[in-house]
């Protein structure tokens, strides 16, 4: 029975939530909230349960690459399955998504207009995200990926602010362009997935086990898949959807998008591009190291002169997500572990940032840092949270950013040739630039004298805003203070991928 599989419930619950929302009226806000809170709490509980159960299984010696695997034939002529399974990384990603959906629900407590429709699309978006992380069949994975992308258009185009139609269109088109590359890459992998005379398969585990893709094909397909996922991971020069898209998106969408959706890019990069095409990854990594290295520095420098809070964080995301892909391309366990930790850390931190920006914007009705100042005096709670998010972003020990970045730097430094060294040092230099732009914002926005006297009457955070931010801060501090179990879980999950890469090196 398909529902015996725990993972399927990550998709079933959102579907039930959508059904529940469908029964609500737009005017009955409380019913909508009830559905959302119950659903997202269930998802969070499920993610926590999965995480605990997974660790117990591993502890008790379940050493298969993926656990909770299940596979159901969906379309026989093309050998498409609904195949699910998780390793430590997917578990953590599911956890991250559940936390952010949970926090995002509270952050959009007073969404207006059409709350029901908003939450419907929002839930569909999260269905896509959850589905993506549980899939081990490339086709279903791709399908869920698309499911996650499409609602963005409506969410930004309708509930957004500023040049929302333009940004929604730009975001969707660029990401769709990315998926076009991706589709080509996935098809290529599919057709080459079987050894002579075998049946081609979409299943990642099977492909990794049996496929011997010709190196010249690997190179081509690697470029397709890496660029395809790289677009979503905001890789230079395909990142420009990110500033515009984030700037116009409503709070919860920004949270989910920067927090989780951008992680789909990084996840796909190692799960498909690197894992399935290891030889090409070894050969071509240098090209993308250059591009992602540029992303890191370029995003950080661009963020230094922005004046819109969301633009600052969007560029900062370019820099931080660049770090994710950069670390993945180092192709060693430590750096790749760091990449996953950076995904988690960046997801939580950016979600917190965007939530706070939404809350501040909801009060001051501006996001221009030149129009604000001294908010710490007026809204101390939000100010303190913003500072914590900032400190996480600039890598303060005790918060998640530090452990992630340090793991990346230490891991990346294990490649001893000059090319890698130069780029690692370049990437390290981002810690200074990050400090510059974060402190610039904190200094202008929160500290100093109150800029606009109208702001003096504004209120501090209310209960649902506090709830939303506290959830995220606790997670950020949790990772930052006790990183080792996460690091070990990830390192363990990387073993087969690293083995593939090392196999591909010869």
């Amino acid at each position: 029975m398909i529902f015996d599989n725990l993972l399927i419930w990550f998709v079933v619950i959102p579907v039930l939530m959508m059904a529940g929302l469908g029964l609500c009226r737009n005017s009955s806000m409380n019913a909508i909230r009830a559905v959302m809170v119950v659903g997202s709490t269930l998802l969070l509980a499920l993610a926590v349960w999965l995480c605990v159960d997974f660790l117990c299984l591993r502890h008790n010696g379940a050493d298969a690459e993926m656990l909770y695997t299940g596979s159901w034939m969906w379309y026989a002529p093309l050998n498409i399955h609904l195949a699910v399974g998780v390793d430590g990384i997917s578990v953590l990603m599911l956890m991250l998504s559940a936390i952010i959906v949970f926090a995002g629900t509270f952050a959009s407590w007073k969404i207006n207009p059409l709350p029901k429709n908003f939450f419907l699309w929002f839930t569909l978006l999260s269905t896509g995200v959850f589905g993506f992380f549980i899939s081990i069949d490339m086709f279903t994975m791709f399908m869920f990926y698309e499911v996650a992308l499409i609602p963005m258009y409506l969410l930004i185009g309708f509930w957004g602010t500023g040049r929302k139609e333009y940004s929604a269109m730009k975001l969707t088109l660029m990401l769709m362009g990315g998926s076009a590359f991706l589709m080509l890459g996935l098809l290529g992998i599919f057709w080459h997935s079987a050894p002579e005379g075998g049946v081609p398969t979409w299943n990642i585990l099977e492909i990794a086990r049996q496929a011997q893709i010709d190196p010249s094909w690997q190179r081509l397909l690697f470029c397709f898949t890496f660029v395809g996922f790289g677009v979503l991971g905001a890789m230079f020069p395909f990142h420009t959807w990110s500033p515009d898209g984030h700037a116009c998106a409503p709070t919860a969408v920004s949270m989910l998008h920067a927090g989780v959706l951008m992680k789909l890019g990084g996840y796909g990069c190692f799960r498909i591009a690197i894992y399935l095409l290891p030889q090409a990854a070894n050969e071509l990594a240098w090209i993308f190291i250059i591009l992602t290295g540029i992303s890191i520095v370029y995003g950080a420098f661009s963020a230094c002169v922005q004046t819109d809070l969301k633009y600052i964080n969007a560029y900062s995301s370019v820099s931080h997500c660049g770090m994710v892909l950069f670390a993945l391309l180092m192709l060693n366990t430590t750096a790749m572990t760091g990449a996953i930790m950076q995904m988690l850390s960046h997801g939580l931190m950016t979600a917190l940032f965007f939530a706070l920006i939404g809350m501040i914007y909801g009060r001051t009705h501006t996001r221009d840092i030149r129009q604000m100042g001294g908010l710490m005096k007026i809204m101390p709670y939000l100010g303190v949270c913003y500072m914590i998010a900032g400190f996480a972003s600039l890598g303060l020990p005790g918060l998640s950013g530090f452990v992630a970045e340090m793991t990346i730097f230490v891991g990346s430094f294990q490649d001893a040739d000059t090319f890698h060294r130069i780029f690692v040092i370049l990437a390290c230099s981002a810690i200074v630039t990050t400090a510059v732009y974060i402190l610039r914002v904190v200094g202008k926005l929160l500290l100093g004298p109150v800029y606009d006297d109208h702001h003096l009457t504004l209120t501090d955070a209310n209960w649902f805003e506090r709830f939303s931010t506290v959830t995220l801060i606790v997670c950020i501090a949790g990772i930052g203070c006790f990183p080792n179990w996460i690091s070990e879980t990830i390192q363990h999950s990387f073993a087969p991928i690293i083995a593939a890469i090392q196999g591909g090196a010869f």
Partner: protein
Amino acid sequence: MDITLPILILALPIAMFLILGIGGVKMSRKVAGVLGILGMGTTATLAYIVAFTYFFSGNPDFIIDGVRLQYQVFDVTWLAFTQKLIVNIGFLLDPISAMMLVVITTISFLVHLYSWGYMEHEPGFQRYYAFLSLFSFSMLGLVVATNIFQMYIFWELVGVSSYLLIGFFYKLPSAVSASKKAFIVTRFADLGFLIGILILSYYTDTFNFINLTSNPEAVLTSTGGATFMGASVLTWAMVLIFTGGMGKSAMMPLHIWLPDAMEGPTPVSALIHAATMVVAGVYLVARMFPVYCVVDAAMTFICVVGAITAFYAAVVACAQIDIKRVLAFSTISQIAFMMVSLGVAYDRPIEGVHYAGLGYMAGMFHLFTHAMFKALLFLGAGALIHAVHSNNYTAMGGLRKYMPITHWTFLIGCLAIAGIWPFSGFFSKDEMLAAMFARHWFWGAWMTMVAGLTAFYMFRLYYLIFWWEENPHYKEHKPHDAPWQMSLPLIFLALVSCVAGFIPFGELVTWDGVPYHIHIELPVAATSLSVAVIAILLATKMYRVKNDLPTKVKNFWPTLWEAAHRRFYWDEIYQFVVHKIIFGIICRSIAWFDRHVIDATMDGMAKVTNVASNSIKGMQSGNVQAYVIWFFLGAVALAGITWLCLV
């Protein structure tokens, strides 16, 4: 050793931070203050017990055959990067960490107490105590680090607490920019530190201090003679690690943040920017001392940077008006003194020198005595500022009658820093100069000159505050000594400054744990003492009573005075580089490039698609004749192609 006490030493301050930080809003000032002071007092007591146990218990963990050992009380895994590179959080007891425990907790406790009086009327009192606790936690974690990465972790935390405390008066733009500057400059230095750690750990496969320092030759060989740009990679690593120390300890050219950091509350300056955090760089070099010893180039670098900084800061201190800035530059100069002292030390006998490790011992000794008398001077300055509500000596003068306690304690501080027998500074400075003369006469002579300058500017400051001419404003607003919470620390520190010189420091702290009997080197002592006395007499002549001699001296070469007053334009240079070049040119052009080239290309593709579809949409006209023509042309073209292919 039982691990409860060491754990509590770290846990209490962080617990205080969390309690005061989260619950502070709901607490009254009194509760918050008492909690903070009690918490720190307990921590100090525990630290004293631990240090006492380490030095005097005779436990074989700590001392065998008269040699003091390094002992890791605990060392637990925090994050494993690879199989070998593992970050632990631990507690290392050895002579210098035990000494630092005493220094930090003592000064921190006194500052907690002092702040109760000093900050009484400031808003955010609870927050202030929370930050002080956070700082104490970070600093304690830094000194007891068992591995270089733990040190880096707490190093960053110290930086952030410093940022928070400098910017405590966050409504003042000057405080905000000072805190930002401090953080970014030290962050820049930490980048060097980080890269240094990466290089070192890559070759040695360990972060642990004991592994690194117990066999420096192995560290040297582990790099396999790899070089980069003409210098061995180990030299690079050690110099880069030292860069981190240069940032925190405000060595040239990364000193620019420290004078500005005086924007913070004065007790904070006493704690962080005089006694504890700024010596972190010295502590780092001392910690890695055996490794530095096998890298001669790095040691020379430390000496040169220290010597230049010491002289520069002393000159600048002679031309400052703000009393806290004078003290700040004096701190820079004194720390540079310690750096040179470490730089001239050596871990094995060298010809003609009876004890090559003297510089290490002397540097640590000076670190200890300096922490005490500099905290005293800063707290004294705080009492003065509290009384006259200005940082500038121009608002002071003739205060000795009004504030006797502050006057006498400040005088003791000045005598100590000037190096007058029998105050503590004399002993430590004498040992440092002896070590420098022993290494090379040049270092000794140069630093004796700096010592003379020190005596001069400190007494200039002293006379301008307490003598010179009574300020007319006192009639309206009579200055008076500070309340007991503030006076008590002053008196205590003054007493310490009187007697600390007689501590047999060499018996306790040496680089290898082998005790050393301090003895005064008469020629060196006589030279430095006479230089100091001459400098003090000169200052007395110039500044004791109001006269026009200072103006004459100033007008003798006004450009020099102006340049010294403006700190030789370092800030302007940095402003130019950061604002005009980095922000103005690099960041702006990247942002422009992003919007106008990359994004425009993407938009351009969309436009091209639009234009293309607009231009061909006329084909779908609905006009049947047109369709027929297109159909016919298509058929002909196909037929033509088929024919060509067949033929």
